[in-house]
């Protein structure tokens, strides 16, 4: 078995999620290579080379690959496909975008968002927003897998794997990058943070959302999350959404503030180790899954919480 893992990065820094996808690859077993597709991304390749269990890092660099668009990255993976039995990535927006394209080109069925490795060809994955867990066995010779990284731990960084640069693939030209508005935040990444504090519609406005959650997140060193209702209402950016269609998180501590606990939201945070719910509605479903519940008005409770930390 030889596994190709697509690295998640921004051309400067390798995402911690890649180290978690490597945990899944390690459990499957075999020789693991990491593919860094990007532009001016040698620094990323060097970080990937440090990750344990990596036999080789493959670095492909071109302007077409800079923004990780699906068409050129899928074509690049296909150019390497003969050497591999398995193709993996994080179930990030890049992984979700690129890997099914690769699967179709290989004529195989992708196994999306695995949460557990049962054997080299069998995996568990959530369906119905995590309300059921499917165990599936892939019958395809080559396998394409995306990994829900919150279900895996990071591999260590004591390796020194060789880096092999390969020639850039030919231009595809179907799509091009126009611009991006990435949130600029000094806070830890939502999917990597040890503590996540999330807000719902109960905040009533973007001003209150920020005014109450920012100081608390700063004090705790926490990432800020939001329910779909809060994002839809414009209190928070879309990339902060925790839930079935947003980010899936599993921090040590998840503090849900003014969040009712809709199935959609719970799907994104129910694997958190400890859950705290603060809500003034004692009947809110969030209390049914919270380790610690506080029935309180968040406009009073959150400033008090900040002061007592």
């Amino acid at each position, binding site marked *: 078995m030889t596994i190709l893992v697509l690295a998640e990065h921004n051309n400067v820094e390798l995402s911690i999620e890649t180290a978690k996808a490597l945990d899944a690859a390690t459990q499957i077993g075999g020789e693991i290579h990491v593919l860094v597709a990007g532009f001016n991304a040698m620094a990323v390749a060097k970080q990937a080379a440090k990750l344990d269990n990596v036999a080789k890092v493959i670095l492909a660099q071109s302007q077409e690959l800079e923004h990780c668009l699906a068409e050129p990255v899928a074509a690049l993976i296909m150019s390497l496909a003969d050497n591999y039995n398995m193709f993996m990535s994080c179930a990030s*927006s890049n992984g*979700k975008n690129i890997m099914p394209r690769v699967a*179709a080109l290989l004529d195989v069925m*992708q196994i999306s968002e695995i949460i557990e490795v049962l054997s080299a060809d069998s995996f568990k994955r959530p369906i119905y927003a995590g309300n059921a867990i499917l165990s599936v066995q*892939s019958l395809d010779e080559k396998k394409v897998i995306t990994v829900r990284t919150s279900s895996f731990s990071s591999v260590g960084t004591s390796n020194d794997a060789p880096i092999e640069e390969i020639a850039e693939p030919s231009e595809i030209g*179907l799509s091009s990058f126009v611009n991006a508005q990435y*949130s600029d935040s000094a806070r830890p990444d939502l999917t990597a943070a040890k503590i996540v504090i999330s807000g719902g519609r109960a905040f009533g406005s973007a001003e209150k959302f920020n005014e109450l959650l920012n100081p608390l997140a700063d004090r705790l060193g926490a990432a800020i999350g939001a329910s779909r209702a809060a994002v839809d209402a414009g209190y928070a950016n*879309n990339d902060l959404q925790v839930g079935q269609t947003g980010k899936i998180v599993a921090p040590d*501590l998840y503090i849900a503030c003014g969040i009712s606990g809709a199935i959609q939201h719970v799907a994104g945070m*129910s694997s958190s180790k400890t859950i705290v719910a603060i809500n003034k509605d004692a009947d809110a479903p969030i209390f049914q899954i919270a380790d610690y519940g506080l029935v309180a008005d968040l406009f009073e409770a959150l400033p008090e919480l900040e002061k007592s930390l």
Partner: protein
Amino acid sequence: MKILVPIKRVIDYKVKINVKADGSGVQLDNVKMSMNPFDENSLEEAIKLKEAGKADEVIVVSIGCAKVAETLRAGLAMGADRAILVQSEEILEPLAVAKILKIIAEEEKPDLIILGKQAIDDDNNQTGQMLAAMLNYAQATFAYKLELNGDSANVTREVDGGLQTINIKLPAIITTDLRINKPRFTSLPNIIKAKKKPLEIKSIADFNVDISPRLKILNTQEPPVRTAGIIVGTVAELVEKLKAKSLV
């Protein structure tokens, strides 16, 4: 411009699903079924383009049992012009669905194919990307905003770090995220009008496509259950509990 909108009939998003005790799957009998919510977004976007004079025809297509015709009629009531039902008793995986859609796309030659980013039953998030690969089209997944400019489109996508805008050459595949629009409610007159719109029924056997499953389902289980913990009385008590577990 012609727009093809593939839709899927799924358990209604408000229904709490039941996993069968014998592990054989999710209870589907006597459960309310509806159009996949993300597909409502894709259809809404297509209809808006038609209303804006940028598209001439919107075709909805679905694959499944005879009852899927109801979901297609709902699509016609929303504003699609005609529907195609590919009748199949088998439940198809995204790879097989994409192969069928590819053949339909080659027949219909749409300029744009707009799909929901994922179905809320299997949560696979694959069909649009697979179809794009098979047709060798550009893809813009998780669309938040769509702007057509002649033979290309600018699509703003919801991505991990925020928003990313890309330009795609048409014909192309777009998959929609929830915030791209608010799907309309259908009025009674439109529901009645939809009954007269054309709905063509094809048999999956006529497509001559290998639809055999590539994933063998071993079992379907309930997720691990989380139980309610304790209710604390005050913020101070909460902080004390969290400190005791070294969480803060």
